[in-house]
């Protein structure tokens, strides 16, 4: 008992003040890309050529955040001339098109469905389905339950049964072998329900696009309401998206 108290004193309160106070991530973090549209076409072409995810559109000078793994190779290739990854972790989007970006995203709160805010603004229960996720998306979603993020203080919880849930949060490129289980879980959630695609895998197949063992795009199976890009999304990216979209 004494040890419990001693440890409690040593640990103190570690819960983040976010979103009341902003958080600054370390400068090496790769978040929202800043794109220089006046960059020379040849540099953009070089970036597009080395991009492992083929997510750079040279004509429109955009990056598809639904495909990007934020590996940072284009930043290095262009020496920051075309792309610079900022520390801004606010990347959630309400539509797939918004993720194809020239360097900014529309305000998520304004594009969220208003009836969702009314229905789920005070209490949101989600069922997580990993459909061939590599466990980084899963792990960085799980940390939202640790004391630093303390997700439940916002009335948001991950629950054990789809019957108790208001929606599903899907990670992974959706392997053929998980497709049926994913659809069954979706069916088991009572309507009206929310679908969240988390991580570039569930949005576009991520690193596994093109494999004939994966579906690669959650939208092909069920309609997605909220997109959270990243490989994996930073926990703050997820937290920001959930708060903006539902609160």
């Amino acid at each position, binding site marked *: 008992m004494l040890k419990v108290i001693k*440890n409690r004193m040593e640990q103190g309160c570690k819960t983040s003040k976010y979103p009341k106070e902003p958080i600054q991530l370390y400068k*090496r973090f790769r978040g929202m890309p800043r794109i220089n549209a006046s960059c020379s076409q040849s540099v953009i072409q070089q970036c597009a050529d080395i991009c492992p995810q083929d997510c750079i559109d040279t004509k429109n000078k955009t990056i598809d955040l639904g495909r990007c*793994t*934020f590996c940072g190779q284009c930043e290095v290739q262009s020496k920051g001339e075309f792309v610079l990854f900022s520390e801004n972790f606010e990347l959630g989007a309400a539509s797939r098109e918004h993720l194809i970006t020239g360097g900014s995203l529309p305000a998520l709160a304004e594009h969220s469905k208003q009836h969702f805010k009314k229905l789920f603004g005070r209490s949101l229960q989600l069922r997580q389905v990993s459909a061939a996720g590599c466990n*980084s998306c899963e*792990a960085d979603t*799980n940390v939202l339950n640790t004391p630093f993020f303390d997700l439940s203080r916002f009335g948001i919880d991950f629950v054990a049964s789809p019957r108790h849930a208001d929606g599903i949060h899907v990670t992974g490129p959706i392997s053929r072998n*998980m497709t049926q289980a994913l659809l069954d879980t979706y069916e088991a959630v009572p309507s009206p329900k929310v679908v969240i695609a988390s991580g570039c895998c569930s949005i576009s197949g*991520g690193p*596994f696009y093109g494999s004939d063992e994966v579906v690669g795009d959650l939208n092909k199976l069920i309609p997605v309401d909220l997109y959270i890009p990243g490989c994996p999304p930073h926990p703050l990216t997820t937290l920001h998206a959930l708060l903006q979209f539902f609160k």
Partner: protein
Amino acid sequence: MDNLLKIKNGAVVDRNAIPNVSNSVFFSSLAEFVKNDGYIVQFFGYIENGINRLIAVVRNRDLYVIETEVGSSFQSLTGSTSEKFHLFEREIAEQFGIIPEGHPWLKMVRYHKNYTGAPDAFGNDYAKEHIPGNYHYFQVEGESIHEVGVGPVHAGIIEPGHFRFQCAGEEVLHLEIQLGYQHRGIEKMMPSVPQKRWPIICESIAGDTSVGHNLCFSQAVEALASLKVDDKSSIVRSIALELERIANHIGDLGALSGDVAFNPPAAYFGRIRGEFLNLLQVLGGNRFGKGLVRPGGVTHVMEEEQIKIVRAKLHELIPEIEHVCDLLFSATTVLARFENTGIVAHEMAKDLGLVGYAGRACGISYDARVAFPTEYYAHLPANENNTTDGDVNSRASVRREEIMHSMQIILQLLEMYEQIGATTGAVFMKEHSLKANSFVVTINEGWRGELSHCVLTDNNGKVQRYKIKDPSFHNWTGLAMSLRNQGISDFPLCNKSYNLSYCGFDL
């Protein structure tokens, strides 16, 4: 032994030098090797000029390789020699339709159509059937026997897999684990996609082992393209691998504490784990170390500022972790649940070929960092484990010891880093021309245990076969054995004490 070729971890071998022996010599050599305290690192099939070939990499104190040609079947060694072969043989059957004759329980590994278009070894038609689990599970019969099926979708935020328990009341008589839900076809993808995609794919073989798998991949490319990694980059890689180890071990100790309903350490360790992920982000911009390791070195040079951050954080966290560990491991209610739960006896562990902390907790001291050191590990002291009874408590204690050891060696690595000269700088993924007609195997001690990648190139230097092995491939059977004659309510605890990878297994 005379028939096997001795090789080195991460060194290129000319494929013509690999002993290509007859079937009988191949299998008798393997059987003899494995019976005499030998372990299998890789054992897989590939096709050349329409002929099925099998290649095996085995280890005792050294590494060896041998290969043979087979037709549509071969003699199984699972029943006659050792259980160590069972999954490897099933995998060969599933990937190439080559049947291991006499395998005692031949069943699917990952549920996918084979690479060759040969008739499916199990008679499955994947064009019609998508759902894994179309299989008659092993069943225990009797009046009071009941069956419990769990998954693929589980209650927590974790990966999918199916567990089938045969129980008498609360007691589990048998647990059968069926995976494959996570199968993404990685081994098939690797030879067919452009090189620029390789590191991105390898980082996501198992996202909690991004650094480990990408090290195996990068070392293989370095060997085949004759790239040299400078000492400073090597140190950064070693630090990243250790940070990955600490973060996962700490998270699991917290989860184990939560599973026995002791909440304070669960909360503290949950938060502390994040501190280590943040250190990986300080090094390379991603909490899982993605984008850091690339063939030839690392993408971010560690500078004074990062050294300072890592060192200060470790000095801050070491006492905290010691205190929380003491809180966890001295609570009698915790020990009552940890001790004598989920025991795998030493002999059993050896028969199964368990690796990593699962093996070390059973008294198998093998640690690839010591046996086949890569990067900067040859300069570092080894860890020792004191609690090796094969139960949950041992697996937890081994992890506790490894956390402490890893933090110390990171501090040592930081000092070494400051003492050696300049680095050649950051590297990035480029097209590399690979040595033709070559073979390389790389081994690293990931946090779960022995990781290994194996690459075969053809006459034009193109990758002909890319083989990946996650330690979970060895250890899932250990979890099944842990549950024998245990209360079913101890399953979460046993499971978490291993915390094996679903996607690392399913590939």
